[in-house]
């Protein structure tokens, strides 16, 4: 029997974990190991993927991946033993809590390891501290959804800088800890393990091993401690001074849970500080500990987690043997030896390459590992994962009392009954997205956009009057007002809509709903070679391509990200609505609604066809596995959201201004001067450089019925901003458009406008995410697809 065969509510025990490479390692890292207990929770509305509960949290995976994991039903003895153990743990937990309460009542002191505290290991005159003026660098590492961003924001306030890690499109944030100017903390991507597969994992381990921060702050979700400690153990193996920030303690204790911090500290050998980042509890104490351990370079007291008494000690013997074998190589490579040994046994190719073992050593290593596999009865990766989880289980038993099902969990389950229910998921999704777009583009965004536009209008008017009063040359006047102010101003008008959209989307993402959308849209998107996560950027693309492209940063796979960015231009953005409205009202007034809907559907249909083509050509290969955690629903903090919006707004303004300003000036000059650089009077645009250029390429558009240079010029001006297609046409077709064009030409124009290159701001976003080559590809490919579509429409119209 496999995981796929489980029915809802059924329990099982994992027997073997199939698959290979990154996917298999990801399974193991997420706790899907032989011997682990799982419960099938639900299937997505379309029957795939599935959601299961393991190690106290919810995990989703596709049925095709679940089919690789063999399970068996627990027998009667195992179920009885599990119930007994559960009761025993609950009893032990109650006793632990009672003992602690009694001690607190008597105000008794407890023996406290005191790791990372002043005066315990080091009096001020002792120890081996770094110089006082040394910059204390920290890596902030933790699982996704552990509250890392919230903690980072609490630690740094506004003293942070957003950038990228070189070589990969992974966000990097650096900041200075408030009140400690000689610090620098780097927020690393959320990861589950230090394995060598995803770009986030590679970036994190490279940062830790190569940039050698002075200390690590490992944030652990106290409500999901078993899975979080898996990463902690690997971080401890790096021998870098570390402090654990045990986050969400408010939720843990609020739901009747308990953690014996002293015991945990003793077992892990590093300071453990209970915090709630959202409520700013314990953060000061965390900072004091972090400063101390970094300043005094207090390394973790423990890196050895294998037990010689567990399962015959096979893994213990193998690890220690490998440590001795590779000691000199690890020292030369600058990799902590315990970390190197466990990674080597797992089959980590990056560590293998770095250590550069000779033939004899490699063979010895292989023999050691084969012997371990034989004695332990598990393959190497599973054996190491099992070793880690065995240690975690030991710490858990000694130090953690599991909370009752938390209020947050109960609330999430109630919400999920509607938001991911078989019949309600998709209607709820359509409703929510519809509300977001309506609010962003019609209510809030439109209101703010009108406000900004009036402000820009007032400014433009004032500048216009000033230029007139100063008797400025007409051409320069036109360049400043009609070119720069109107050009840059029209891009600026995007800003309120983008910020509003991002506001709602960040709430959706931080609340945990986006994870659910990816869950139930996965099956549909897989048919076009993408995974569920790609749905969000595509939806945003119906509003504006710029934030759609920016939002693809949340996609974990580079292939998926690239393909999603290339498909978003097919989702017709709102800037094209004036074009549709203009032609539909002029040529198809009786069928306006049908034509508008038809245009959107046509755009999506072409996008699906192109996706199918990409799948067979540029983006061959299987879609990335879909293994994802479904966190509890949470209300995002207002400070975090506000900070994110400010970053996005600043980012957008900086980039849009540089590109748009240059492009605006160039296009205006081309429209205003003839080939001899004489300034053209109004109404003589037909003699402009732009017209000359347009006439060069208008024969290309002739088969599509768009050979008129005025149409070509309008379409070229649409490259700046789609709205300018209509304004340019109004200038160039001064006698009225219905007199100059036929309905067939209007239809071709609509088809071409729907599909051709997005505006320069969108192309700039593509260039930013994928580089120049892909940005140019988008321009030409979209124009080619648009041309074909326009020719097809013309052919069809000639038949009718």
């Amino acid at each position, binding site marked *: 029997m496999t995981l796929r065969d489980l029915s809802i509510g059924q329990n099982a025990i994992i027997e073997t974990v199939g698959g290979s490479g990154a996917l298999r390692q990801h399974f193991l890292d997420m706790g899907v190991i032989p011997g682990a207990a799982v419960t099938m929770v639900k299937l997505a509305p379309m029957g795939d993927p599935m959601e299961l509960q393991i190690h106290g949290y919810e995990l989703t995976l596709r049925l095709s991946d679940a089919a690789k994991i063999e399970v068996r039903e627990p027998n009667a003895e195992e179920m009885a033993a599990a119930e007994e153990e559960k009761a025993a743990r609950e009893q032990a937990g109650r006793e632990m809590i009672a003992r602690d309460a009694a001690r607190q009542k008597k105000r008794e002191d407890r023996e406290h390891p005191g790791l990372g505290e002043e005066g315990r290991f080091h009096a001020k005159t002792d120890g081996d501290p770094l110089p006082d003026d040394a910059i204390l660098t920290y890596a902030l590492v933790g699982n996704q959804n552990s509250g890392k961003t919230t903690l980072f924001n609490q630690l740094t306030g506004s003293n942070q800088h957003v*950038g*990228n890690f*070189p070589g*990969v499109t992974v966000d990097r944030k650096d900041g200075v800890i408030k009140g400690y100017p000689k610090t620098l903390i780097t927020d690393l991507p959320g990861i589950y393990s230090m394995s060598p597969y995803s770009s986030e994992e590679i970036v994190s381990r490279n940062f830790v091993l190569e940039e050698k921060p002075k200390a690590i702050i490992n944030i652990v979700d106290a409500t999901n401690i078993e899975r979080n400690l898996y990463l902690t153990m690997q971080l401890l193996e790096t021998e870098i001074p570390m402090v654990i920030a045990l986050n969400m303690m408010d939720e843990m204790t609020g739901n009747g849970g308990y953690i014996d911090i002293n015991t945990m500290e003793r077992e892990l050998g590093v300071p453990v500080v209970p915090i709630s980042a959202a409520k700013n509890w314990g953060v000061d104490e965390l900072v004091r500990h972090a400063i101390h351990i970094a300043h005094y370079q207090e390394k973790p007291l423990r890196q050895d987690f294998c037990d010689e008494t567990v399962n015959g000690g096979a893994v213990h013997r193998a690890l220690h043997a490998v440590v001795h074998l590779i000691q000199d190589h690890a020292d030369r490579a600058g990799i902590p030896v315990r970390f190197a040994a466990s990674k080597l046994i797992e089959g980590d190719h990056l560590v293998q390459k770095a250590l550069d073992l000779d033939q004899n050593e490699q063979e010895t290593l292989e023999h050691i590992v084969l012997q371990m596999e034989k004695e332990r009865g598990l393959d190497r990766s599973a054996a190491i994962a099992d070793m880690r989880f065995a240690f975690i289980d030991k710490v858990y038993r000694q130090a953690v009392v599991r909370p009752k099902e938390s209020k947050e969990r109960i609330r999430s389950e109630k919400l999920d009954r509607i938001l991911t229910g078989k019949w309600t998921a998709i209607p709820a999704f359509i409703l929510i997205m519809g509300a977001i777009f309506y609010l962003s583009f019609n209510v809030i965004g439109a209101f703010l956009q009108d406000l900004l536009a009036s402000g820009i209008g007032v400014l433009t008017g004032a500048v216009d009057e000033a230029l007139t009063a100063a008797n*400025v040359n007409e051409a320069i006047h036109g360049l400043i007002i009609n070119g720069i102010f109107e050009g840059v101003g029209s891009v600026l008008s995007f800003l309120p809509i983008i910020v509003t959209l991002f506001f709602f989307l960040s709430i959706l993402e931080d609340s945990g709903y986006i994870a659910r959308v990816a869950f139930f849209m996965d099956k549909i998107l897989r048919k076009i070679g993408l995974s569920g996560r790609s749905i969000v950027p595509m939806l945003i693309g119906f509003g504006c391509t710029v934030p759609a492209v920016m939002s693809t940063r949340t996609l974990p796979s580079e292939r998926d990200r690239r393909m999603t960015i290339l498909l978003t231009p097919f989702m017709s953005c709102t800037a094209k609505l004036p074009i549709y409205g203009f032609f539909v009202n002029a040529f198809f007034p009786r069928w306006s609604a049908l034509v508008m809907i038809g245009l959107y559907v046509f755009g999506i249909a072409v996008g699906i066809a192109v996706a199918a083509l990409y799948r067979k050509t540029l983006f061959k290969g299987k879609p990335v596995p879909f293994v994802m955690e479904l966190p509890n629903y949470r209300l995002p903090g207002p400070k975090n959201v506000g900070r994110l919006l400010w970053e996005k707004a600043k980012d957008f303004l900086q980039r849009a201004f540089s590109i748009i300003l*240059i492009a605006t*000036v160039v296009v205006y000059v081309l429209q205003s001067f003839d080939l001899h650089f004489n*300034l053209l009077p109004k109404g003589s645009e037909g003699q402009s450089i732009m017209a000359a250029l347009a006439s060069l390429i208008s024969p290309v558009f002739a088969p599509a019925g768009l050979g008129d240079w005025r149409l070509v010029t309008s379409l070229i001006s649409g490259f700046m901003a789609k709205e300018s297609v209509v304004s340019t046409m109004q200038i160039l077709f001064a006698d009225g458009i219905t007199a100059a064009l036929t309905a067939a030409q209007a239809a071709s124009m609509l088809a071409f406008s729907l599909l051709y290159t997005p505006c320069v701001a969108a192309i700039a976003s593509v260039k930013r995410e994928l*580089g120049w080559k892909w940005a140019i590809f988008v321009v030409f490919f979209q124009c080619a697809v648009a041309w074909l579509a326009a020719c097809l429409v013309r052919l069809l119209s000639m038949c009718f």
Partner: protein
Amino acid sequence: MQLNTVDIILLVVILIAVIGAGVYWGFRKKKCGGCCGDCSQCRKK
């Protein structure tokens, strides 16, 4: 085209703004060390 002092000043300002925008763009492109966020070099693996 007849230009007065104000015209010339405005043209110079526009030119500086355009060149400045170009330099800013180019500068950010060069400044890749993992911190700029706008460097196409960072996209190369």
